[in-house]
Every structure is written in structure tokens, then in C-alpha cells.
């Protein structure tokens, strides 16, 4: 075999090894980012459509949860101070979308203060909401039995209503239920805490 042919073979082999290692790095990075995108994926609990994790903000959080918190809940308080439940689907399991209207039916959570806030897929408040991003304990209108219904999305309306932005392309969104100074019964049973139901009414 001529020296030139041997050198060419070595060069091709070296390039192949480099490409293989670059691919390996990419696979490692991409699988890591996908793995932490849902910050409840590590030891999280579910109550109905609402997900949370008792280790959010805690010094006992796993590396995956810390990374998930960094992406989707930076500066979150620990569970003894605040419990954060997030819903990305309705009761049927379909993803929440800005082009649909929902009814959120609930009863007073056993916490000092609470709020329900809508966030876009980028984890920020949704543009075009004209300040109607949330409903909270102080402002919510309740029925005689203490229960409440909050409408989410659709045309602007008075009372218990959260906007999901102006009309346009239907995008995924999420709702976060914050429970400040929750009762110990909630912290001790995050999965068993009764939480509002999210029912889709119609989609445009």
C-alpha cells in the first residue's frame, strides 16, 4: 500500500472519531436538557392535573430538579413557605392552549393566601392580557358555599377571569397555583390535596 493511501485512511479514521465524539457530546447535552425541562420529573407528585415537588427550592433537591427549577421556577421558595402546583393539561389530559376557554372549579385552599396565574410556554406572563394574568384569594368571587369558578381564556369578561392573551395562534400555556404559608396538611400530603378542576369548554 502506498504511503499516501495509508495517510488518507488515517485521516478518514481520525475525522470519523472526532465526529463520533462530537455526536456523543451533543447526545449528552440534549438528553440532559430534555430530562430537566419538566422540573417535576424527579420525585414529583400529582394531584389531579396539578403537579408539584416537595423538594422545589429545598437543599435536598436532586441535580435534575435544581436544573428544572432554574429553567422553569427560578427563585422558588421551599415547600414550608410556599407550595407551587402547575397544570399544563385539562381534566381530559389535553394540553392547555390559548385558543381554548376553560372553567376552573375549586374550593378555598387551606393556605394563608393563594393565587392562580397563567404563563406562556416561555414561562413568562402572557402578552396581551391587559393585566388579567391572575386571580387571587383576595379578589376571587365565591359562591355561598365558598366555592369558586374562574374562567380562563376567551373574550374578556368581568369577575373571575384570567386572560390567555389576545386572539392569534393557539399556543400552549400553563397555570400555576401558589399556596403561601400552606397548612401542614397540604405539605404532608401534596398528592392528596384537593385542588381545582380544569375543564375545557370550547376551542376556537
Amino acid at each position, binding site marked *: 500500500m502506498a504511503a499516501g493511501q495509508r495517510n488518507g485512511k488515517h485521516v478518514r*479514521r481520525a475525522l470519523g*472519531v472526532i465526529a*463520533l*465524539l462530537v*455526536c*456523543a*457530546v*451533543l*447526545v*449528552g*447535552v440534549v*438528553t*440532559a*436538557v430534555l*430530562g*430537566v425541562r419538566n422540573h417535576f420529573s424527579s420525585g414529583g407528585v400529582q394531584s389531579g392535573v396539578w403537579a408539584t415537588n416537595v423538594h422545589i*427550592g*429545598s*437543599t435536598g*433537591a436532586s*441535580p*435534575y430538579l*435544581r*436544573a428544572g*427549577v*432554574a*429553567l*422553569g*421556577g*427560578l*427563585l*422558588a*421558595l*421551599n415547600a414550608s*413557605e410556599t407550595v407551587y402546583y402547575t397544570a399544563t393539561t385539562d381534566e381530559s389530559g389535553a394540553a392547555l392552549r390559548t385558543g381554548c376557554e376553560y372553567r376552573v372549579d375549586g374550593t378555598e385552599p387551606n393556605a*394563608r*393566601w393563594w*393565587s392562580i*396565574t397563567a*404563563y406562556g410556554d416561555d*414561562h*413568562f*406572563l*402572557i*402578552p*396581551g*392580557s391587559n*393585566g388579567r*394574568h*391572575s386571580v*387571587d384569594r*383576595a379578589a376571587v368571587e365565591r359562591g355561598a358555599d365558598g366555592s369558586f369558578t374562574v374562567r380562563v381564556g376567551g373574550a374578556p369578561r368581568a369577575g373571575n377571569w384570567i386572560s390567555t392573551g389576545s386572539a392569534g395562534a393557539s399556543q400552549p400555556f400553563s397555570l*400555576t397555583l*401558589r399556596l*403561601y*404559608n400552606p397548612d401542614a396538611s397540604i405539605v404532608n400530603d401534596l398528592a392528596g390535596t384537593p385542588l381545582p378542576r380544569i375543564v375545557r369548554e370550547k376551542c376556537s
Partner: protein
Amino acid sequence: MRRSGWGRWLLLAVVVAVVAHALTVWLLPRAVVRVATNVMAEREGFNRAVFPPRADETSRTIVRPSPDLLYAGCAFDVASAPVRIRAVVPGDAYWSLSMFAANTDNFFVVNDRQAAAGTVDLVLVAPGTKVALPPGATLVEAPSARGIVLTRTLIAREDRLAELDEARRRFTCAPLS
């Protein structure tokens, strides 16, 4: 048995992928907190209080801000000196002061019910630092040299906004003199 040439490289690729995965998971929170800390410090510098406007759809620095709260913050750096943090607790509205390490951990929190005196006076230090505490101040050890202090004030009623904002702005964060 001798492993084939490409077999060795494939094994190495698997090891590299696992290391890249683990490094990404470990680095991600630290990188995000570092960016957030630097953005906060850009306004006033480290160990200085900042008072961002009420969160709305134009707030794009920290994810999932609450529009029902007023925030005050401080990017702390205790590497060279302790930092004194003081705040006034507004009456009858939820309030908390929390501290976050470089890896996102919420390593300290105090709320309005726990701060019964109506004020909070803390000295934040690097682990193991000896410091003469001012009278009435409480020592807090930070697990990382840099991080973030954040106060949350609930806007219980819109007509109390000005009063609550005035209390929020009495938050201070400065090197211990």
C-alpha cells in the same frame, strides 16, 4: 480478546455522552443563577438593593414572576466581606425575605409572621467567617459566595399599593461597615 478499533471508540463515545449529560445537569442551574445574579448586579452592582417594577408581560428576566407581589432584590457577594441586609415588614400583608444559593437552593427564608418585631436585620457571611454582629442582627451563612436575596410583598389590595411600595423600598443590602 482484543476489542476491534471502532469498538473502543464507541465505548469512549458512550462515556463522553454520560459525562456531557451529567455536566450539563450540574452546570445548568449554576449558569442560570449566574446570569440572573449578573443581570441583577448590572443595575446597581453587587450588594446593592434593586426595586424592579411590578411584574407584567414585559418582565423577562426571572421566569414565572407573580403579578400579585412586589419584589425587592439584591445580588450578594460575600467573598470579600459580610453583607448586612435589613428590611421593614409591612403590617397585615404576606411578606417574606428569602435567600438563594448559586445552585438555586432556597437556603434561608423568614416571613412576616416570624419577623414579629416588624423589622429584619441579617448579616450574611461566607461559611466559617467570624464577624462581630451589630446589636440585634442575626448571622446567616451563605453556602455559596454569590447568590440572590429577594423580598416578596403581597399586594393585598390595590389601594394599598403606595403604602406597601414605600415599605418595600426600605429594604437595604450593603457590605457590613
